[in-house]
């Protein structure tokens, strides 16, 4: 049995790959840069003795996931992890069309395309986990990340459908709505809420494998924050500058 980890060379993807390797799982790592992938694969082999393959693939290219077709047909992959995402500073509703396409591909369509390649085999085997990673940005749309929030909300909807599709099977579909993470993206930035460590998130995800947790905000304090944010009447919400 193998696990496929998208975005495996940095941040949460790296933490998940290390957790999986320490549990003796075989791995296929996917990320953009071959150098980063080779280094991470070498680490997992040297430290954990894991069997690791990797594939360089740019998820912001809508057609790139086609390269996974062969892998989906051949390998005994049972667990799919999608800790990927792409945010852009100037995402205020006026991004050029090509950038929007890349952003939506990296956050939404590449995940949908990849899942569709593997789903028939998982359903046939009646076993497996599909893990989606969303963002608290999808709670309510805001002017600072117009396209990103839309793509992440789309991803939530997609994972809900996927959970419904697999409900009668042994395949578990889980979705984590994450707050700020302590990664290179947030490094040195002062944020209104604390940053969670990727190791802690990875441990929680591992603990929940095989369980029907649905959509789970992480860390847990984001659940009441989410309720409050959604309950805010428009009259107040429109004045918020965040």
């Amino acid at each position, binding site marked *: 049995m193998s696990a496929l980890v998208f975005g495996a*060379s*940095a*941040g949460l993807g790296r933490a998940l790959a290390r957790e999986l390797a320490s549990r003796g799982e075989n791995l296929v790592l996917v990320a953009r*840069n071959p*150098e*980063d992938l080779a*280094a*991470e694969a*070498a*680490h997992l082999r*040297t*430290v954990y003795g894991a069997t690791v393959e990797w594939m360089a693939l740019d998820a912001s290219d809508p057609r790139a996931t086609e390269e996974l077709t062969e892998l989906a047909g051949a390998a005994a992959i049972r667990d799919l992890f999608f800790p990927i995402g792409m945010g852009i500073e100037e995402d205020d509703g006026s991004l050029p069309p090509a950038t929007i396409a890349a952003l939506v591909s990296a956050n939404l369509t590449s995940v949908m395309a990849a899942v569709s390649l593997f789903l028939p085999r998982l359903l046939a085997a009646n076993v497996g986990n599909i893990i989606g990673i969303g963002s608290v940005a999808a709670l309510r749309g805001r002017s600072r990340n117009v396209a990103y929030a839309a793509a992440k909300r789309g991803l939530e909807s997609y994972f809900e459908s996927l959970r419904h599709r697999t409900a009668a099977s042994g395949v578990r579909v889980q979705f984590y709505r994450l707050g700020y993470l302590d*990664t*290179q993206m947030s*490094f*040195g930035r002062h944020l209104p809420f604390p940053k969670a460590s990727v190791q802690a998130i990875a441990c929680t995800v591992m603990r929940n494998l095989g369980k029907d947790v649905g959509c789970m905000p992480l860390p847990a304090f984001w659940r009441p924050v989410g309720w409050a944010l959604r309950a805010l009447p428009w009259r107040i919400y429109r004045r918020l500058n965040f």
Partner: protein
Amino acid sequence: MDGGVRVASAAVQRPDRHAHFRKHENALPAIPRGAGFSFAAASFGSGAESIEVTAFDRVLDFDTRTGQVEVEAGATLGALFEILAVRGYYLPVQPGHHRITVGGCIAANVHGKNPARDGTFVAQVESVRLFHPHHGCLELSRDKEPALFHATCGGMGLTGIIVAARLRTQRLPGASLRVAHRQVTTIAEGAGLLTEDAARSDLAYGWFDCARRGRAHGRGIVVTGQFVSTRETESTLKLPRSRFSPEARAWLPFSLLNPASIRLVNAAYFWSLRRSSNTIVTLADGLYPTRANELYLSLFGRRGLHECQALVPHANLAEFAARLRDHATRAGACITLTVAKPFNGTSDLIRFDGSGISLAIEMPRSAAADRLLPEVDRLVVDLGGRPNIIKDSRLPRSIFEATYPDCDRFRTILRRWDPQRLFRSELSERLGL
């Protein structure tokens, strides 16, 4: 870390992808940073962006045939220890805290528990991968670009960013250390024992009480240890977690150390060691003793401490100790800690090495310390000693130049490699490098 130098707005970035190490021409002044544990301000400076390499923490290869491990610069000594120890290997030269990074050890050419026998960190470096924006990534070793290799090992990060290195490990002779404590009455007596025992010890240092007045001044304990085979268990090879950082060290708003409390702490420490003449300690405690000193270091409070360390020739040590005592009394300074280690190497470029005994002293930051330290500087120069530039955040350029005759050669190599002098820190600006 010592509270001596602070920057108002630190520009730090923490890249996590190799794309950062691409050749480009329009780079801004920068300085690499590891765990940020050095006492001197070597990993930051005004006008230079600190590039923290802690996300590059991978162990890329371990060859049991040669015993060589290839590791990225941000890997901590503790992480590497846990990976190597279960395979029966270790690095003989390691500084006292397990959260220090491999890159930092190379850049500062740190020493370990017995420099007289094991040398300094460069002795176990086989090769280094160095990044400089104008040159890209380069492999350096004693055969490939030797001048740059030697300038990078102990080059304080001024040649560029160490991305990865291949290190020489050794067979771990045992899972514990048998440690002997011997009481001595003077620093010179302790130094004699250390020099005698260095060749047959895996660990050799002396601790002295220089806070005492009268005859007890300079009494101390000589600590020597050897690896012993005990039953290995998972727990003996696992290191406890530590959240120590420069900010954590400075959490107390004021110092709790004054002459009275220092004498009390030192007396308690002396008696506790005296009673345990022969003990078995875990590898974690033996290899990383600074972890046990985290509380002591935080007692200096936000204002911090001064540490200075000097390598003094054997022949001049007794005179050095006597004159240090006189100067400390005259200045009214209270020395909290004095640690001696035996050295038996040769210094190259700006590396802290040589033959003699190194004495590290610590004291709270105060007007008395400000009076004492220039006297210590002069004493080091007078007696043919050499200060350690990574330990002393205030070491003046004139003293550095008087004690490192090779510093101009280092400058020449550096300028030939990087005419624009892209990599700079508070340390390099202060010492005119």
